[in-house]
C-alpha cells in the first residue's frame, strides 16, 4: 500500500509494537490474523493521510522551516518479488493503484494482491461483504479507465 520498502518496514515494526502492547485488549470477536491485518491497514491509511496532509501544508512549512525537506514523489517502482518481464506492467498497475481512493486501494490490494477472501476483507475493513464487492468493482472499473488512458498515450 505504501510502495516504499523502508516505509513498509517501519509500518510493520509499528504493527508489531501495537500488537505487543494491546494484545491483552484483543476481544476475540475476530481471528487474530484479521485483527493484525486491520491494525496494519489502519497504520497504512494513517501514513497515507499524513502524507497527503504534509503535501497540503508543505508549502507553508517550507516558508517557515527551512530545515524541512520538501516531499518527493514516489521512487521508481522496483519490487524485488515481481518477475523481470512483468516489472514494466506492474509499474503501470501500481501507478494506477496510487490514484485510487483510500478504501478502493485497500480493497483492491487485499483482494487482488494479498488474495484474501471477500469475507476476510469485510472483517478487516469493518464493512459488509456487499460493500466490499461494490468497492472492488468500482476500483477495477477505475483502474481499467486509467490503464486505457495510459495505453492510448503510450501508443500515440
Amino acid at each position, binding site marked *: 500500500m505504501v510502495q516504499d*520498502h523502508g516505509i*513498509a*518496514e*517501519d509500518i*510493520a*515494526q*509499528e504493527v*508489531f*509494537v501495537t500488537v*505487543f502492547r494491546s494484545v491483552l485488549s484483543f476481544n476475540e470477536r475476530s481471528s487474530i490474523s484479521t485483527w493484525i491485518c486491520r491494525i496494519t491497514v489502519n497504520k497504512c491509511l494513517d501514513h497515507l493521510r499524513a502524507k497527503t496532509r504534509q503535501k497540503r*501544508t508543505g508549502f*507553508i*512549512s517550507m*516558508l*517557515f*522551516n527551512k530545515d524541512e525537506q520538501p516531499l518527493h514523489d514516489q521512487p521508481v517502482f522496483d*519490487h*524485488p*518479488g*515481481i*518477475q523481470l518481464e*512483468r516489472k514494466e*506492467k*506492474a509499474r*503501470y*498497475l501500481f501507478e*494506477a493503484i496510487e490514484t485510487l481512493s483510500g478504501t478502493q486501494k485497500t480493497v483492491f490490494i487485499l483482494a*487482488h*494482491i494479498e488474495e484474501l477472501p471477500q469475507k476476510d476483507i469485510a472483517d478487516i475493513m469493518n464493512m459488509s461483504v456487499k460493500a466490499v464487492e461494490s468497492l472492488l468493482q468500482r476500483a*477495477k472499473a477505475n*483502474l*481499467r479507465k486509467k*490503464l*486505457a488512458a495510459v*495505453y*492510448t498515450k503510450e501508443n500515440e
Partner: protein
Amino acid sequence: MENNRQQEQWIDEVLHSTQGMLRAEPSAGFMAGIEAKLRHPQGKKAISFPIKWAAAAMLLLALNIGSVVYATGKAHKAATPAADTNPFAREIQSQNLYNY
C-alpha cells in the same frame, strides 16, 4: 476493433502482472528496530509552529471580516427609515393627502 481488443488484452495483462509475486523479506535490522521502538516509544507529534501560526491568522481574519459585516449590516439598518422598507409607507409619502 483490433486496437480495442489489443487494448483490453494489455489491460488484463497489467492487472494480472502481480500474479506469483514473492513476499517481501524483512531486512537484517528489522527485529532491532522493533526492540528500539518498544524501549523508546515515540510520543504524539505536536502541531508544528507554521500550522499554528496559519490557523491563528485565519481565525483573526475570520473574526475581523465577521465583525465588519455585522457592523455594516447594523449601520445600514439604522440609517434606513421605515418608509424605505415598507412599500405602502413609501406610497403614502409620495402623495399629498387632503383630509377634509
